[in-house]
């Protein structure tokens, strides 16, 4: 099967408009007879469900949490990008497009990224109209901040809770449609299979997580907005329930999985504290606007700090290595995430890590507190040389900007980041890879769509900060609701889809068999035991840097672990009750398959690009080295076992941007 990205003809800037003008529409009277299933209620799924319902489709929306408002988009802190150019600092649609393609290390599809940049401004207008309380300046206009990998301020934010406010905006739009009966909401439901009838996605099988009931749901099209698969690493910044199951089941039913190895390891997370740890907490990238990252220059200072004999605040300026500022003077502390993470790992691997495990660097706000304090003293006509006063005034400014993040840090680490620098270390955060989709966001299965983090399309090999929220809402509010009409226009005479067909029967049976196998297995190890083991393999061998030997051993170790899981996992309780261990077991079973494909993809991609760093392919200075012959998307077709997956390539063509070495120096 040849991959057809269905990108429209014409000049880049006119493609989306031309496409919208030409695709088929469904008239409002017919929309009433068409059902659409949306799985996942984060920014992508939630905004899509609301918009499709506003257009008149009958929407059934599903989430595994107890309310759509809990989806993990809610945890996004820093902000959302939009090419509004409110700051007059030279921003434009083209520049956002350019930054995103470059930031993704030239591994994303040009047309999709341009469209994303094009609709970005509409997102801000839409959200403000919904009542999203973005930060404003004293003139009452919207405020912006800057994020990594760019030279303009285009990030809109709501304190450190931008994802929360945008999600609550989408949730409010959903609520309006739920109230009108246009969305039927299924909370605490997990999707466990896609049902394909005559080659088209026509429904899903779900498990009601409260009573264990297996249900069949039909529709004319199915949309997955089910997020990323970072939890394959066990420890990540994802929510505990975030999983790959919906995407993986779609893959097993024919949807190609693209670039699974592209993972974002976020540079500013709170370091691991012990074996009991269940998840990692992110500290927003926005902190790098004001925080300076450093480690000591001398090993003896490192040792003294680790032993508690030396306080970081007592270390003289000349004994500190602000390694990002040193290596990347143009972007400094605001280099993109992949670059910042690798630089932290490089320093820690060289023995300069500042905590007991040697896996932490400092993120220091002392300079920012002083700078802001002096500014405030000047404004207020106070003594700029009064160190205590300056410090106090500066802290107030920092508190207003990042207060909730500082509080979160203090609660977890039990140290006061206003007084001593934060300790941070990279952690798994976001997955750029995902289900392959064409320009219409349709997967290789007709009628099955994939949006937001769950698809692969916009971020290439590395995502820039504040772009995930942008993509989720762009897909859900402004792209999918148009493109899905083109497909559904053929369905206006189809009538309701019956769930009483052999295809639904078979899919339900498949799900029931897996559940029965798990609850009757009576093995000796818990689900977490296997999940943690998988996470260790992934982190050690498919993490921030990868090589052929490790990847090969990861592939065989994951296959063995998967075998051990099915033989020896212990799932307490029964299938027909609230049973979180069973839900977890089903998710981990899928992670154990995805993990192997992930390693296979990483092994196959013999180049370094963005978050995928192959030790064999680096420049003399240790930077990622791309290879022209890998300028394609790897789309894997399921063939029974992850190891048998078949590779399909989508060549990436850059006509509007010159592919060059990605430099932030």
């Amino acid at each position: 099967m040849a991959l057809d990205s269905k990108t429209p003809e014409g000049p880049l800037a006119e493609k989306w408009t031309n496409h919208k003008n030409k695709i088929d529409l469904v008239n409002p009277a017919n929309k009433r007879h068409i059902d659409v299933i949306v799985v996942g209620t984060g920014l992508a799924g939630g905004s899509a469900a609301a918009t499709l319902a506003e257009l008149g489709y009958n929407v059934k929306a599903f989430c595994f949490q107890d309310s759509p408002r809990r989806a993990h988009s809610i945890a996004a802190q820093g902000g959302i990008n939009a090419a509004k150019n409110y700051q007059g600092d030279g921003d434009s649609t083209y520049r956002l497009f350019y930054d995103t393609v470059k930031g993704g290390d030239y591994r994303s599809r040009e047309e999709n990224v341009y469209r994303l940049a094009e609709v970005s401004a509409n997102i801000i207008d839409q959200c403000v109209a919904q009542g999203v309380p973005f930060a404003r300046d004293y003139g009452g206009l919207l405020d912006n901040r800057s994020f990594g990998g760019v030279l303009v301020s285009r990030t809109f934010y709501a304190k450190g809770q931008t994802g929360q406010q945008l999600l609550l905006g989408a949730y409010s739009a959903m609520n309006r449609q739920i109230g009108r009966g246009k969305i039927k909401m299924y909370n605490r439901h997990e999707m466990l299979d896609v049902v394909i009838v005559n080659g088209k996605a026509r429904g899903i099988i779900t498990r009601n997580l409260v009573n264990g009931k297996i249900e069949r749901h039909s529709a004319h099209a199915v949309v997955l907005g089910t997020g990323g698969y970072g939890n394959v690493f066990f420890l990540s910044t994802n929510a505990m329930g975030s999983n790959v199951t919906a995407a993986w089941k779609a893959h097993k039913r024919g949807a190609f999985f693209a670039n699974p190895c592209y993972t974002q390891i976020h540079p500013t997370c709170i370091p691991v504290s012990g074996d009991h740890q269940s998840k990692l907490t992110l500290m927003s990238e926005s902190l790098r606007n004001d925080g300076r990252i450093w480690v000591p220059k001398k090993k003896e200072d490192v040792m003294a700090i680790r032993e508690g004999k030396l306080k970081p605040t007592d270390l003289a300026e000349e004994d500190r290595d602000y390694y990002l500022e040193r290596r990347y003077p143009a972007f400094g502390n605001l280099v993109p995430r992949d670059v910042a993470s690798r630089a932290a790992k490089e320093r820690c691997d060289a023995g300069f890590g500042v905590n007991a495990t040697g896996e932490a660097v400092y993120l220091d706000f002392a300079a920012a507190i002083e700078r802001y304090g002096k500014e405030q003293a000047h404004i207020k006509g106070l003594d700029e040389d009064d160190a205590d006063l300056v410090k106090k005034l500066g802290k107030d400014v920092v508190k207003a900007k990042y207060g909730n993040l500082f509080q979160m840090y203090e609660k977890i680490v039990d140290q006061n980041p206003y007084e001593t620098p934060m300790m941070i270390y990279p952690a798994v955060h976001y997955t750029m890879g995902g289900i392959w989709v064409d320009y219409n966001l349709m997967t290789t299965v007709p009628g099955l769509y994939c949006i937001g983090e769950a698809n692969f399309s916009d971020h290439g090999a590395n995502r820039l900060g504040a772009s995930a929220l942008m993509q989720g809402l762009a897909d859900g509010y402004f792209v999918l609701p148009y493109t899905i009409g083109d497909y559904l226009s053929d369905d206006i005479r189809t009538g309701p889809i019956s769930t009483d067909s052999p295809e639904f029967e078979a899919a339900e049976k498949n799900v029931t068999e897996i559940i029965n196998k798990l609850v009757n297995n009576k093995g000796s190890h818990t689900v977490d035991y296997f999940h943690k083991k998988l996470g260790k393999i992934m982190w050690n061998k498919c993490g921030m840097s990868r090589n052929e030997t490790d990847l090969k051993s990861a592939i065989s170790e994951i296959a063995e672990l998967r075998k051990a899981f099915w033989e020896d996992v212990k799932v307490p309780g029964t299938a027909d009750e609230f049973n979180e261990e069973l839900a977890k077991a089903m998710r981990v079973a899928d992670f154990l398959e995805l993990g192997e494909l992930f390693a296979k993809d990483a092994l196959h991609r013999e180049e370094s690009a963005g978050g995928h760093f192959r030790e064999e392919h680096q420049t003399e200075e240790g930077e990622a080295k791309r290879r022209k012959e890998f300028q394609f998307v790897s789309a894997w077709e399921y063939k029974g076992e992850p190891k048998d997956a078949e590779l399909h390539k989508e060549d990436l063509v850059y006509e509007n941007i010159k592919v060059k070495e990605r430099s932030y120096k």
Partner: protein
Amino acid sequence: MNLTLKIWRQKNASDKGKLVDYLINDVSPDMSFLEMLDVLNDKLITDGDEPVAFDHDCREGICGMCSLYINGEAHGPDRGVTTCQLHMRKFTDGDTIYIEPFRAKAFPVIKDLVVDRSAFDRIQHAGGFISVNTSGNTQDANSIPISKHAADEAMDAATCIGCGACVASCKNSSAMLFVGAKVSQYALLPQGQVEAADRVLNMVKQMDEEGFGNCTNTGACEIECPKGISLENIARMNTEYLKASLKG
């Protein structure tokens, strides 16, 4: 440290339920409260017992999924945090800790410590929105300046995570802080004015139908709220409600 846990166990909604004692040893002060329960569950499963069911998801204090009534306080003894951000360093060796579900008539128990908070969703369905369709043609985001003060106050109200601690803490099981926060967010913004009267009337009506109690100004909700939502929001809702009622 070593602890005694008294945990509410209830098989399902119709089961009567009871407190059961568990001993747990070698708890690290760096663990979060939920990680401590993970360790307990791991042991229970290995020993062939049923693990304790509790709600949780993001584990960074923002999704609002985690709950728990710990030693008689929603989200436990610390202030300004959810249970997932509560750390064991807040307890001392030898402590006995009571762990119960959020209790309210409108929040029926599903299992053990898991409760059904869908009443909150239904209140939002009744009016927790601004009626604007998605289109690429809404006016430019900067066309209506909003004073920083109003925007910040709206943001403070919008910070509510919908966890239900206010209801669990209230002797009347009132949801006024939760509803007040949503009503306030929109009442403070120009975009929310058009539907302000209908919104407050519909949301309060739904709140009453769900079986939440009234507010008697005790203020426990504000103290226990992990996001510091202010009582002012209740006052503002009452003002809005009165205005809407008088308009008829």
